[in-house]
């Protein structure tokens, strides 16, 4: 099975979130970038498990500049066979999806996997866009994925529950918790990653659909008001009269 896994960089979960240039840019000072956890833990690892059981090839693709090769090497060290970097700043989801879809169209993948969202923009946009460009089914937020020939069986979250669905390949699947367990690359993987093929491709021109104009931070939280554990009537009164939530 020929699998394409889309990965994105995101700031480490514990990074301080701040902005510069008049609040128009994310402040990268001191920020450690990692492979977006949903892409790495769930999409990539499940792709590798499928390859190990039924055979095939796992290609990873990202849209980014040379600095992003660290996340590519990490993904190769975990076990992907080869990598593609579209050499461009990932300006918005539509731009990224266009580049990925163009590559995918030329290379006949049975399965395109992504994480359910990135932890920086939380848009959940790229996978659905790629599916529409390729005109193939899209199973979103899947927590299980099994393959039987050309049939995928998936478990996915739906509003207020779970659904088991079947889809034929080729298809796009976005992966959520439950799909696989995180893998730590071993020394052999890290060494092998250095020599695995990395293809760098120039981006195609894309019309700008959306752009982030500025950012802001939430107002600082007021100090927490402490309430005596024996006086729950006071808490109820505050929730009713001050916070007005009950």
């Amino acid at each position: 099975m020929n699998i394409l896994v889309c990965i994105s960089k995101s700031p480490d979960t514990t990074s301080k979130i701040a902005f510069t240039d008049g609040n128009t840019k994310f402040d990268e000072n001191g920020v450690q970038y990692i492979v977006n956890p949903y892409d790495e833990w769930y999409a990539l690892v499940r792709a590798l498990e499928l390859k190990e059981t039924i055979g095939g090839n796992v290609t990873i693709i990202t849209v980014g500049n040379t600095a992003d090769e660290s996340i590519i090497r990490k993904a190769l060290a975990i076990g992907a066979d080869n990598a593609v970097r579209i050499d461009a700043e990932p300006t918005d989801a539509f731009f990224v999806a266009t580049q990925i879809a163009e590559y995918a169209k030329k290379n006949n993948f049975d399965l395109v996997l992504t994480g359910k969202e990135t932890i920086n923009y939380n848009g959940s946009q790229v996978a659905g866009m790629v599916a529409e460009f390729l005109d193939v089914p899209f199973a979103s937020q899947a927590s299980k994925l099994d393959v039987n020939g050309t049939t995928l069986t998936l478990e996915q979250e739906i509003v207020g529950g779970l659904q088991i669905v079947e889809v034929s390949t080729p298809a796009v699947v976005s992966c959520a918790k439950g799909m696989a367990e995180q893998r730590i690359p071993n020394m052999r993987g890290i060494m092998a990653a250095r020599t695995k093929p990395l293809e760098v491709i120039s981006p195609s021109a894309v019309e700008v659909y959306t752009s982030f104009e500025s950012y802001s931070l939430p107002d600082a939280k007021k100090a927490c008001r402490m309430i005596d554990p024996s006086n729950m009537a006071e808490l109820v009164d505050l929730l009713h009269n001050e916070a007005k939530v009950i």
Partner: protein
Amino acid sequence: MKALVYINTNHFAAKASFEAVTYAKKLGGEVTVVAYGNAAGAEALGVYGANKVLVDSSINEADNQQITRLVASAVEATGAEVVIFSHDLVAKAVAPRLSVRLKAGLISGAIALPETGNGFTCKVNVFSGKAFGNVAVKTAVKIISLLPNSIQPENVGGTATVEAFNGNVGAAAIKVVDTKKPEGSIPLPEADLVVSAGRGLKGPENWGIVEDLANVLGAATACSRPVADIGWRPHHEHVGQTGVAIRPNLYIAAGISGAIQHLAGVNGSKVIVVINSDSEAPFFKAADYGIVGDAFEVLPKLTEALKNFKNAN
């Protein structure tokens, strides 16, 4: 601006639907709703400003390709300039497809009405709720996926006409084999009030005091990641970075320390109450009201105080 609102089937009476229609109404133009399946109750959306509801009753279940075709047909039929979704699991699958199909820029997770003085920009949640972004959309047609609990539904007292609609939805590519929906419980993303607990509760047999409080409040129940991972509670109750992100009016957390990954799922809550026996628990920094105490004593006392309050009001 002429707006089209997509509403999930059988969701004409859901609060998230009222919010989406109210949002569309506030854009100032004609508001059309599109849905599929059973049309019963659709006219009620007129109260929130819908002029017309288009229902394709040829299907009762639809996958995201079919819904994309349905909404695209409705945009064509109405000339809508803005398409509104409530940012749920259906919208997360359909809106990106529609963006490609209509060549329309998509704003995911909007939390406010757009600014239209200079271009078209909208405020969204980014960095898992730790910051906001202002996104500009440059395309003629715009798609907005609105985070639940971002605006208050407004009763404008209108009526909507319900019309049969052919959305040319085509065949389904995704076959549903089985659906599991827990009976009777309030779906977490839609809940206004949420009571949540973590490892501090010591075992699944102790969840009765959490459920008692939730029942008195009419709240949904949630839990932290470790609790779902050990299997004390079902996975759909897990809120946090890797679980569900929620924005209720009130979030009560008992026996949860408040790791950054947990906060990422609940920091959109209007009011946070934290109950923890450890006065150094990081969650108190994110809380509005805090109680340092044993959850096994505090939760029943809070339930009792709420019962008294409900009886008196």
